[in-house]
C-alpha cells in the first residue's frame, strides 16, 4: 500500500471523478423518464393530439380511480381477485413443489411420471378454461382450479430443475452423515432447490394474474378482470384503465413481496 499523500491536480481530480458524476446524472434521469412519458400522454390528450375516447388523460384516470377508491367499489374487486389468486396459487404451488422434489430426487419416478407432465404442460391454461367452467361451474372453484393448474406446472419444473442441479457432493455429505431418505429430502434437496423454487414462485405469480384476468372476463360477477371487461362493455374507458393499472400494480407488489421473502429465506444466494 502506498503511504505517500496523494497529490493530484485539480484537472486530474475532475477527470478522475467525471464518470461517476455522469453515472449519477443518468441515474437521476432514469427516475424521471416514465414520468416524462406520462406528461407527454397528459399533454397529447389535453390538446386532442390523441383520441381521448381511447386514451383519456392520466389526470382523468386518476380522478376516476380516486372516486372509485373513496366509494370502496375498487376494494371489492381487488379483494375478490386477491382471494382467487391467493387460494389458487397455494393449491398449485404446494403440490408442485412436493412433486417437483420427488421427481428431481428419484430417477425411476422421473422416468415413469415425467412424460405425463410433459404432455400436459403445453396445454394453454386459458384454452381449457371452458372445460373447467363446465366441470366446476362459474363460481370461485373454477378460478382456483385454473390458477392452480398454471402454478403447479411452473413450480413442478422449477423445483425439479433446482433439485437436479444440486451438486452431488451435498448428497454425499448427507449420506455420509447418516441421513435417511426423508432427511435428505427435507434437509438437502429442499434448501438446495430453494433459489429455483423462488424463481418459480415469481414466474407463477406473474402468470396467475394473466390467468385470473382472462378467467374473470368470462365467468365472474366481481374481480378486477370482471371490472375491466364490464367497463369495456359500457365503454367506460377511464375505468378500464384504472382496472389495468390496478391489476398491474397487484402483480408488481406480489413480486416485490416474494423478493422480500427470498432475501429472508435464501440469504446464501446472490441477489
Amino acid at each position, binding site marked *: 500500500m502506498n503511504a505517500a499523500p496523494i497529490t493530484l491536480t485539480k484537472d486530474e481530480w475532475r477527470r478522475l471523478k467525471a464518470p461517476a458524476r455522469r453515472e449519477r446524472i443518468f441515474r437521476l434521469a432514469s427516475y424521471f423518464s416514465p414520468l416524462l412519458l406520462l406528461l407527454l400522454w397528459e399533454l397529447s390528450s389535453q390538446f386532442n393530439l390523441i383520441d381521448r375516447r381511447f386514451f383519456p388523460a392520466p389526470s382523468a384516470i386518476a380522478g376516476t380511480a380516486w372516486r372509485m377508491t373513496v366509494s370502496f367499489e375498487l376494494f371489492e374487486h381487488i379483494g375478490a381477485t386477491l382471494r382467487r389468486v391467493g387460494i389458487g396459487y397455494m393449491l398449485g404451488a404446494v403440490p408442485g413443489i412436493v412433486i417437483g422434489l420427488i421427481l428431481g430426487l428419484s430417477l425411476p419416478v422421473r422416468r415413469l411420471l415425467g412424460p405425463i407432465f410433459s404432455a400436459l404442460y403445453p396445454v394453454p391454461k386459458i384454452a381449457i378454461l371452458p372445460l373447467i367452467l363446465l366441470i366446476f361451474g362459474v363460481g370461485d372453484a373454477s378460478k382456483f382450479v385454473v390458477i392452480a393448474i398454471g402454478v403447479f406446472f411452473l413450480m413442478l419444473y422449477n423445483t425439479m430443475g433446482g433439485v437436479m442441479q444440486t451438486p452431488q457432493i451435498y448428497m454425499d455429505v448427507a449420506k*455420509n452423515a447418516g441421513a435417511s431418505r426423508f432427511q435428505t429430502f427435507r434437509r438437502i434437496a429442499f*434448501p438446495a432447490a430453494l433459489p429455483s423454487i423462488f424463481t418459480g414462485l415469481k414466474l407463477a405469480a406473474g402468470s396467475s394474474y394473466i390467468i385470473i384476468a382472462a378467467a374473470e372476463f368470462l365467468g365472474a360477477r366481481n374481480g378486477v378482470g370482471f371490472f375491466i371487461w364490464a367497463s369495456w362493455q359500457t365503454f367506460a374507458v377511464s375505468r378500464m384503465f384504472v382496472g389495468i393499472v390496478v391489476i398491474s400494480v397487484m402483480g408488481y407488489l406480489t413480486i416485490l413481496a416474494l423478493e422480500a421473502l427470498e432475501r429472508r429465506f435464501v440469504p446464501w444466494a446472490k441477489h
Partner: protein
Amino acid sequence: MATVQETVHPSAVKTAPPAIEVSHLTKAFYDSEGDRVTVAVSDVGFSVARGEFVCIVGPSGCGKTTVLRILADLEQKLSGTVKLHSATPPAMVFQEASVLPWLTVAENIAFPLSLKGVSRAEQEARVRDLLALTGLTEFAKARPHQLSGGMKQRVSVARALVDDREILLMDEPFGALDEQTRLVLQQELLRIWETTGKTVVFITHSVDEALTLADRVLVMSPRPGTLVANLTVPFERPRDVVEMRRDKRFWDMTYEVWRLLASPARD
C-alpha cells in the same frame, strides 16, 4: 472430550487388529452410451492399523478417490473384500467445498448430530468444543459464502469429527488451498489427530503432503490404479511441518516417491 484416547505411538498398535482391511479390490465403470468399460482400480490391497495415519498418493485419475469412496460406502466395489473393524461408519472430509451453503458454520458442524436427533444442548456443547479445536469460534454464526477456502475446509473437518467416529477418510481436503494455508491446516490436522487418536486415510496428489502427515504412504500407479509401494515414514511425533523440512530423510523420501510415480507401471 470423551473422545480422547490415550495417544499411543503408532508402532505400539501395529499388533492390534487393523481398523481397515482391503484385499483384491477392483472397481470399474461402465459407460452405456459408448459401451466402454473403464477399470478405475485394479487388485488393490492394504490394511490400516487402529490409530494409524495413512496417506494414499498418486497422479490424478489413478482411482485413489474411488478407493476412499468405496471405504465410505458412497461407491460400490466390483469385486474384492473391504472390511472395516469399527463400531461406527467412517466419517468423510470431502475434496471441494462440501459445506452446506444454507447453514451457518455452527449448523454445518452440528449437521450429523441433528440428523440423529441429539438434544440441542448436547449439540451446542459438542459444536463449541469443535469450533475451539478448529479455530472457528468467532465464525460460528457466519455463512459459508463469507468464509475463505481454508475456513470452509476447517468446517468440513469439524463436521467429520463431531459425532466422534473411529475412522476418518479425507479426500484431498487441502488440495484447493494455497501453500501457506495448507501448511497451517496440516499442522492443525496433526495436532487434532494426536489428541483424538483417530484412524485416518488421507488421499493426496502431493508427495510433500503425504510425507508431512503420514505414518505410512501408499503409492498408486496411473489408471488402472494399483498399489506400487508401501513406505513407512520414519519421522517422530509430534511433528513440526516446517522444521521437518530440514531433515535430509524428508528429501530422500520425496525423491524415492517421485521416482516411483515417474516410472511407468512395472511388469
